[in-house]
Each structure stands twice: as C-alpha cells, then as structure tokens.
C-alpha cells in the first residue's frame, strides 16, 4: 500500500495578513478555508474531510467543523507542532487512498502577535522535571547549534548564509514581514538571543494562517489547476528517550526524509526545489543533512556562499522568504512550506525566484523543540 499518486494538492492558500488585531483565530481559519476553496475552484459542500492541529481553538476538530459549517466523514487532529500540516497532507492522502474522504481541508491560523501566546503542556510527563528550567525554542535550538558547532566545526557565518538566502528571496514577496536583503555580517552583528543564535537566526512571529486542499485523483483532474501529486511521505517523532538516546545534531527528519524519498522512488538529487522548515537557521542545516542533501556534519559547507539562493545556488529553498523572513503564523511553519512548494510546482512563484521546469519538490518540517522532543514530516510532491 502506498499513497503515491493516490492524492493531489488541489488548493494552497496563505493568508496575506501578518498582523490581525481585529480578527479572531476561528475567523482566520475560516478566511483561510474560503481562500483555499477559491484557489482550487471547489465549494464548502465539496469538503468531506477536515484536518487541524493544536492551533485550532476548541475541542479537537469538532468546534472548527461546526464553526466552518462542514459536513465531514473523516477528521484527524494529529498534533506534531509546526510540522503537523505537512503530516496532515500525508494522513489525508492515506484517508483518500482508503476511500474515507475525497476532499480534505487542512487549516492553520493564530495570532501570536496580537494575543498572549502560551507554551507548555500542563500534565505532560516531563513537566515537573523540565518546566522550571526555562526552556524555550530559542535555547533548545541553541543547544543543537552549539553541539553541531562542537562536533562538526559549523560556524555562525555558515548559519548566517541560510538567512541571507531567505532574505534574498523575501525581497520579492510583497507580503513578507522582512523584505530587506541582509548580509552575513548583518546576521552576526544582530543581538545574541540565546548562544549561538542571533536575532537574525530566528524566524519572525506573525499572525495569520494558511490552508490546503488534498483531493482524490478524479477530483484533481476535474479542476482547472495544475496537477500536484503527493508522491511520497514520511513522519517520525523523536525525544531524548530516558536521556539515553540524546542526539542533538540529528532530527526525526533522518527517518521521515528517507521514508518519503523511498516511497516517491527518487533521491534528494532529483529535487528541483526544497521547502525546509526554518524556525531557526540551525533547523534548516540539520534537516538538509538528515534528508541526505549532504552528509552529517557537512551542512555548514553546503549552505555557504549562497547555495540555497534560487537562480545561483544548487538547491533553491524557501523562495517565499520562509519563516525567517516571510511568515511563521501561530509560531508554526509547516503549512507555508507546503504552500510555497505548490507555488513552485505550479509555476506560480514570483518570477524572480521561480525554478525553471520545477517538477519535483520536497517539503519538510520539524515541530516541537528540536533539542527536546519533536516531530518531523516530509513530503515529496510532483507536478504532473
């Protein structure tokens, strides 16, 4: 059983807002749902599956299904942080392949700029042992970067190249929060947030959201949109597992990535474009290694000198500007990774960053905290 060619992404919508003081979070979900249906040329009545994660207010999917006015025969609210929506595409493809739905709607939205954002999971088994320690994403990912530097000689200059590439792309995105092109020196001269990560090693905080429609082949072929097939997928969850399996320089993408490529029957070298979740610069570097774009420890050299810049580098990445410059709605970047991959495969990215003849792309993400416990999901998508 495989999901290869069993489902297509027929709709992809990124909410244009980055600051939404006058809209509720459910309202943003609804606007994203309306946007993605318009993008695909489908209607509310066509939706028979709904997927959401922890950002959806209320009781699992039930509150949102009722609020949006959906009638579904399949729902899934798997929560793996910011990677959830990449994973939802895979789960939607599985449900479609099994005949449980034919038009699956995935939504994400939130307002971390406009209302207090709470982290922490009351009652988690690790809570009493860890919550006092002041762990945030910044210092958790900081520990991963510090260990990568220690083991492999990775430098802050190399990490900075990831931000330089993202900013080079973001200048063309009118919706991007940060549109100024920055240099390696700009990154190194920005304030230290948590060693060794500077402010410009960190993604933006934005209100907003996005939505995707994953549909059955016969639905996709009835629409007037380019065909973007789900060709392979993988997922994994990783943690320190009793403190005996701690490995800060390898992510769960070392499992999800190879699984996705195996199902797709292709290799990293076949990818014309890569959406790599960029909560921090180090997140990109570790995933590039784990997906097999380079060997473990060689990520620093791989990203240096503009290798991720569309048009000049070998691996164009995050051509919307990514989480580092464009958008990181609700502090969860997975959905925007899929959206920009779909734009590239459709040939709808900005002309300055569009990859010529982009027929194969990967979208991968990490959710949770890379240094503690996290989930990873990887998709290989194909223009047919």
């Amino acid at each position: 059983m495989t999901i290869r060619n069993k489902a297509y992404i027929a709709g992809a919508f990124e909410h244009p807002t980055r600051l939404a003081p006058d809209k509720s979070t459910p309202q943003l979900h609804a606007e994203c749902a309306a946007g993605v249906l318009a993008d695909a040329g489908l209607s509310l009545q066509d939706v028979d599956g709904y997927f959401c994660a922890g950002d959806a207010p209320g009781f699992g999917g039930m509150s949102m299904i009722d609020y949006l006015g959906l009638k579904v025969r399949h729902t899934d609210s798997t929560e793996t942080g910011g990677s959830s929506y990449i994973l939802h595409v895979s789960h939607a493809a599985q449900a479609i392949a099994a005949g449980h739905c034919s038009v699956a709607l995935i939504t994400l939205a939130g307002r971390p700029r406009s209302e207090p954002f709470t982290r922490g999971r009351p009652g988690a088994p690790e809570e009493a042992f860890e919550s006092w320690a002041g762990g945030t994403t910044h210092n958790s990912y900081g520990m991963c970067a510090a260990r990568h530097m220690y083991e492999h000689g990775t430098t802050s200059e190399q990490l900075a190249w990831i931000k330089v590439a993202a900013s080079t792309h973001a200048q063309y995105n009118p919706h991007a929060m940060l549109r100024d092109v920055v240099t390696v020196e700009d990154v190194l001269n920005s304030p230290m947030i948590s060693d060794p990560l500077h402010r410009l090693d960190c993604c933006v905080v934005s209100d907003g959201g996005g939505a995707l429609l994953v549909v059955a082949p016969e639905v996709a072929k009835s629409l007037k949109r380019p065909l973007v097939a789900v060709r392979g997928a993988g997922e994994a969850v990783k943690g320190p597992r009793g403190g005996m399996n701690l490995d800060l320089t390898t992510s769960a993408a070392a499992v999800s990535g190879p699984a996705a490529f195996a199902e797709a029957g292709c290799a990293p070298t076949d990818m014309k474009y890569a959406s790599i979740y960029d909560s921090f610069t180090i997140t990109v570097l570790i995933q590039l290694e784990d997906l097999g774009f380079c060997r473990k420890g060689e990520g620093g050299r791989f990203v240096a000198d503009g290798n991720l810049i569309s048009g000049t580098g070998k691996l164009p990445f995050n051509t919307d500007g990514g989480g580092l410059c464009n958008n990181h709605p609700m502090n969860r970047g997975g959905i925007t990774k899929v959206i920009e991959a779909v734009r590239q495969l459709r040939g709808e990215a900005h002309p300055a960053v569009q990859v010529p003849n982009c027929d194969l792309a990967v979208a991968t993400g990490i959710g949770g905290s890379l240094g503690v416990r996290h989930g990873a999901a990887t998709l290989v998508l194909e223009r047919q």
Partner: protein
Amino acid sequence: MMSEPRKIPAPRPNVENQRFFDAAARGILLIGQCDACGRPHYYPRALCPFCMAETRWVESAGKGEIHSLSTMRRGAGAPYTLAYVTLDEGPAVLTNIATDDPDSLHIGQRVAVTFTPSDGGPPVPMFAPA
C-alpha cells in the same frame, strides 16, 4: 544587560514523581534504574522506557559533564544557561548551569548537582562547575 535573577517556577509533582522532589529536598538526585534490562534513565518514571518493566529509583552521584548548553541573553531572568548534563551513570539531564560567569562554560566541562530553591516549591537539580 543583567536583569533580576530568574525566579525558578515551582515544579508541580504528580503522584508518580513526588518522591523525586521529596529526595531533592534532602539533597538527593534520583534517577530511574531498571533491573529487568539493566539500563538507567532520566527523568525517572514508573515503567522503564526501554522494556516497560517496573523501575527502581536510585541515588545518582550527581556528577557529569556538559553535553551542550545555550545561554539566554534576552528577556526576563536573562542571562541563564539551559544545558544537557550527561551523568556519569549514563542518562542526560535537561537542567540549568548555576554560575555567575556563563561565558566561561563549555561543552565537556565537569559539573556537579546543586539543588536550587524554587519559587514556593521543592528545590530543583541544577548543576555547577565541579
């Protein structure tokens, strides 16, 4: 740059892990030990994460080395240093390094447990340069 020292939020033990914090109040660091598979683990839990047998909670010598660290430079309570310390018994512990000189800390450095008061709760196991 130095702000008020960070208030350590009181841990909220549950019925499974209350004994860890009772021991912490006596200056003892407990880790999990499984007699079925022979492996230790941290944080301790009722059933072994490697074989699901019931565990014993045993006293650690509280010594180890810094596996990685990151010093938070911004926001309330900064600077403070989040770290993984690998205990000599094997498990890695997510903790803080208690120091007035975070810039002197480095990966591989030897450290020892130091129980630190929390804000209205039991003390927590930080580590300090040995």
